[in-house]
């Protein structure tokens, strides 16, 4: 017949392949997608993130069948799901556990990228799509947390929406526009529901597809941080250090999935609230717009950034302003950029330093918190080290990574705690370390003695 493609496959598959590139897609992304042969434990988390995404979408669809996005009914409809809908508790706990596990998996996935330099050229867009996924995920989690309409849902949303009111001039009007009311109310609940169940998930799915297409275009990085495509190849042009994703890594990932699901099920069945970290105790009290709970804190995955928000007081902006001036002087004195650029950056930094003392600290708290996430977008250009992987970096680089990880965890802990002067000081120190880790990276990542990078992957076959 005219217009039909000739394909290798026959039967039903052949019929499909003549109309849709099913076999071609399977080969491109699975059976002939060649990945480095030395993936380790850290490479489980990408496929696990995809698994949790599926869990969240499926459980979410079933929750929506019984949930009511109405300020009068929402809290009770969640209790109804928990107590009266057959298996409702199972689906709801799977969704709430999935939310926290999503962040566990994504944080570890990002840490892997940090360790092995997976964001470096040519994988900048893989990383940027990834950070965009992280941002969308934060939005998704934030919108979703309002829906049970408990005390923590309500006041958490109140605090976060009010972050926007810190923006000079348009802030207060912007906050009203986001809420659709003068306080968090039914209108807010309805629009957050719309964002949570359709708007953000659509964006998230699109970004995940973009993340994978970009990854499969440039190929996966590996723990050695070297390009397998630049190494020796076999007769078909496939790198000798690569194995097809399917069946090798598809089967490998099933091991990760099994281990992950054991942990997931344990949490879901035995400690779904995770001691108040996954579901906060105050969220079992219906929202009361007239009474803030005595201690409010966001869910654990937001607390590192929340600590940075709280750390930014009027005194702390002196440190930020001072840091900007020092950075301005540093850029003027040295740096690989043309003189005009250096002058411009220095001027911007000095202006920022002046603004830090003229605009309220409240606004800068929001800037620091947002900046702590946005700075990740620039990681591919902040890191100037001659090697990608942590394996071939100077020993003290590993020490810096360790400090960074500990700082992030400590900030996370502090964010769950009620404010007190010692903790505030600690979170200010933590904020400085976090910001310096990234902002000073163009300087420190070049320094030290780097180890020689091997030409082939380091790989020991299993016996």
């Amino acid at each position, binding site marked *: 017949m005219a217009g039909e493609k000739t394909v290798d496959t026959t039967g039903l598959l052949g019929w499909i392949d003549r109309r849709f590139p099913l076999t071609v897609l399977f080969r491109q992304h699975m059976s002939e997608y060649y990945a480095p042969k030395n993936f380790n434990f850290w490479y489980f988390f990408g496929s696990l993130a995809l698994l949790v995404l599926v869990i969240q979408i499926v459980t979410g669809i079933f929750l929506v069948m019984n949930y009511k996005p109405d300020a009068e009914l929402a809290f009770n409809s969640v209790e109804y799901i928990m107590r009266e809908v057959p298996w409702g508790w199972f689906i709801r706990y799977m969704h709430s556990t999935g939310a926290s596990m999503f962040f566990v998996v994504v944080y570890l996935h990002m840490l892997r990228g940090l360790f092995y330099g997976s964001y470096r050229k040519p994988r900048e867009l893989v990383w940027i799509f990834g950070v965009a996924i992280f941002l969308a995920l934060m939005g998704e989690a934030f919108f979703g947390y309002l829906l049970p309409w408990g005390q923590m849902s309500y006041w958490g949303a*109140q605090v976060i929406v009010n972050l926007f009111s810190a923006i000079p001039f348009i802030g207060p009007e912007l906050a009203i*526009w986001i809420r659709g009311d*003068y*306080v968090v109310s039914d209108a807010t609940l309805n629009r957050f529901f719309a964002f949570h169940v359709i708007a953000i998930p659509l964006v998230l799915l699109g970004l995940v597809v973009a993340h994978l297409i970009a990854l499969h275009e440039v190929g996966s990085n590996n723990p050695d941080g070297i390009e397998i495509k630049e190494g020796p190849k076999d007769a078909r042009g496939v790198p000798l250090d690569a194995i097809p994703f399917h069946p090798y890594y598809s089967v490998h990932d099933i091991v990760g999935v099994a281990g992950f699901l054991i942990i997931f099920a344990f949490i879901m069945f035995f400690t779904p609230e995770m001691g108040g970290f996954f579901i906060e105790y105050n969220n079992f009290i219906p929202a009361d*717009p007239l009474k*803030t709970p005595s201690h*409010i804190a966001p869910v654990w995955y937001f607390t590192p950034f929340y600590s940075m928000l709280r750390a930014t007081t009027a005194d702390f902006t002196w440190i930020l302003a001072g840091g900007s001036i020092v950075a301005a002087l540093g850029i003027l004195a040295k740096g690989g950029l043309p003189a005009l650029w250096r002058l411009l950056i220095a001027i911007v930094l000095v202006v920022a330093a002046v603004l830090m003392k003229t605009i*309220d600290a409240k606004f800068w708290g929001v800037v620091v918190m947002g900046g702590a996430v946005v700075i990740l977008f620039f990681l591919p250009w902040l890191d100037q080290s001659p090697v990608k992987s942590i394996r071939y970096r100077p020993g003290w680089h590993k020490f810096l990574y360790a400090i960074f990880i500990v700082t992030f965890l400590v900030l996370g802990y502090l964010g769950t705690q009620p404010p007190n002067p010692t903790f505030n000081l600690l979170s200010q120190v933590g904020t400085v370390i976090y910001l310096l880790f990234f902002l000073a990276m163009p300087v420190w990542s070049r320094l030290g003695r780097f180890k020689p990078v091997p030409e082939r992957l380091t790989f020991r076959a299993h016996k």
Partner: protein
Amino acid sequence: MTELTTRLDNQPAIDPDLPPDPSRRTWVATACAVGGVAGVATAVPFVGSFAPSEKARAAGAPVEVDVSGIAPGELRTVEWRGKPVWLMRRTAAQLADLKTLDSKLADPDSDRPGYTPDFAKNEHRSRTPDLFVAIGICTHLGCSPTPELAPTPVPGVPSDWKGGYFCPCHGSYFDLAGRVYKNVPAPDNLEVPPYVISDDGGKVIVGIDENDKA
């Protein structure tokens, strides 16, 4: 019929020798610009639909409160526009304490704009010295501070404070006139809503000022 079909089949869909026609570019650009304007205009209703509805605006009606029963040292909370409004009658001792705090406060004279109506720009931030009316929402990020009216120690607050309002979310604290202390996250004093007091002092209407405006 057959003749026509044959002729069409032999002709390529697009003549390869077709010369470029710059005037078409102008029209493509114009069409894009006009279409873009229409697209932006279509966004207006969607963006606008996010603003408070007529129902939410109507819920901002004034609230009348009987304050004759509020004893000195007592605080009552009422709801106005969905927000908690505090009505607190201060004792003579508490009023005397207010005068001693200026050096510890970020904005003792309520000079910063937006949170203090003209009638409350005084030491006690109220129409009459004893009765304090304020919106019980922290000016930091919108939590409702806890009234700590007795000078009892609160974790996170210097031990010499004279009582006031403590926000548990981020540790901001305010004196009994809702004035914010220095070096806490909240930048502003607690907001004083528009209100009027009846001539006999027994009733407060929250939500209108002396000109009957909200």
